[in-house]
């Protein structure tokens, strides 16, 4: 079966001024793929993730979500999206989880989770609340639904942020270092939720430093170095004897 990829990225480049951060990255994610993006800080992995939903505008390259290409055009020598409406639509199909959670601080957890479905997708509120409560149950913070984010731990906030993204029923979930801002004892509760999602068949792209997750949960590991994909493969290949010397050196630094 050759189903088209959920997400297809072709030769993405991104420069900030004269600094070229991404030097041509291509990647496909098929349904149910869980791809870990590894690399030292400054390797461009977060920028790459942010280029997919256009939080950063790539200097060049193409992004397809379920076969639909995000249309870009040249304006005054700069690449810009051709239609902001299309960008908003594509973004609503891609769930994003940030390192710093970014929950809306003036809304309770439940309000955060139903905000997108009710106001972006314009679905009936009662239905969204029922779904949101099921999602909060799933990520284990049902009892916090009427609590404001500032009154929760980082791990709880990140699980709420995952529920908020899932409430949009995204085609792909993008995780930008979801556990990097957490105290060590809170990392596990977030990784467990992500693992459960992976087992349900969610398509996921995960920028992470968690080698355990990359090795045990993802089905593909992509190692980025200086704005390029240095090597990629299954966790068995990447963490086995055929790993590239650069990747071996990298995991030597990050340990475990």
């Amino acid at each position: 079966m050759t189903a088209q990829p959920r997400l297809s990225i072709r030769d993405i480049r991104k420069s900030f001024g004269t600094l070229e951060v991404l030097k041509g990255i291509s990647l496909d994610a098929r349904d149910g793929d869980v791809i870990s993006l590894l690399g030292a800080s400054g390797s461009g992995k977060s920028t790459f993730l942010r280029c997919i939903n256009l939080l950063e505008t790539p200097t060049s390259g193409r992004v397809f979500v379920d076969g639909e290409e995000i249309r870009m055009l040249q304006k005054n020598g700069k690449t810009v999206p051709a239609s902001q409406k299309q960008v908003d639509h594509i973004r609503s199909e891609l769930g994003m989880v940030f390192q710093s959670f970014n929950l809306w601080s003036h809304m309770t957890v439940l309000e955060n989770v139903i905000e997108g479905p009710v106001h972006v997708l314009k679905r009936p509120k009662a239905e969204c609340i029922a779904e949101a409560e099921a999602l909060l149950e799933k990520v284990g913070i049902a009892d916090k639904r009427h609590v404001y984010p500032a009154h929760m731990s980082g791990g709880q906030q990140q699980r709420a942020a995952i529920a908020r993204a899932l409430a949009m029923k995204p085609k792909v979930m993008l995780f930008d270092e979801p556990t990097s801002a957490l105290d060590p004892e809170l990392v596990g509760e977030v990784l467990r939720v992500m693992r459960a999602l992976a087992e349900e068949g969610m398509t996921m792209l995960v920028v992470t430093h968690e080698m355990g997750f990359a090795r045990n949960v993802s089905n593909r590991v992509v190692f980025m170095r200086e704005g390029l994909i240095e090597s990629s493969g299954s966790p068995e290949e990447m963490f086995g004897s055929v790993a590239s010397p650069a990747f071996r050196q990298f995991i030597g630094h990050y340990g475990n």
Partner: protein
Amino acid sequence: MNIMTLLGFGDKGWALWLLLGAMLTLAVTAVALVIGAILGAAVASAKLSASVPLRVLGNAYTTVFRGVPELLIIYLIYFGGSSAVTSLGQWLGYQGFLGLPSFIAGALAVGVISGSYQAEVFRGAYLAIARGELEAASAIGMPRSLRFRRIIMPQVFRLAIPGIGYVWQLSLKDSALVSVTGLVELMRASQVSANSTHQYFLFYIVGGGLYLVLTSLSDRVFTGAERHANRSMPSASMGKA
């Protein structure tokens, strides 16, 4: 004459007169606050805009109206406005002086000044919103207008309350200057009662007391509003926002 009689509600008493003045002071300040909020929001968005001409215009507004004496603005709007209305009247065939109503001129003048301070309050409030929350709104597919209405506005409102409370207090005191146009607000009411009775100490002190009542009552209202709006925040950030 007996102090109690002077401050009573009877024939010789000035209580009603002063209270009406205080009400008018509140009314001028409230209308000015609304005018200032509209101007302030517009000027703040101009100052935050990506367009250079808009930014220059916004900066010019706040520089001018914060830098020029309030009294001058009031004269400018009252007398300037009145002569403009008079020329308009002449052009339409009416001979004679047409005055701008002093309440409208006063509220407009105080409102224009209040707007220059409110612009800074709104701008600061917008800049205090966590950038990540705006990014999360974009990432979920919110169009700009929805993001403004659902994420930016409620937070600007929350973060602006302490600053707006301060501007309200300034405007309340600025409104005393509107007395020069003949509007019998609290300042003018105190002056008239003092002059009529030659009890200058008494009536200026009572007037001052009434101003203090107004400012401390409004202070309470704003503190309450701030506490309510900050219920989503950790208690440590109370009053800091």
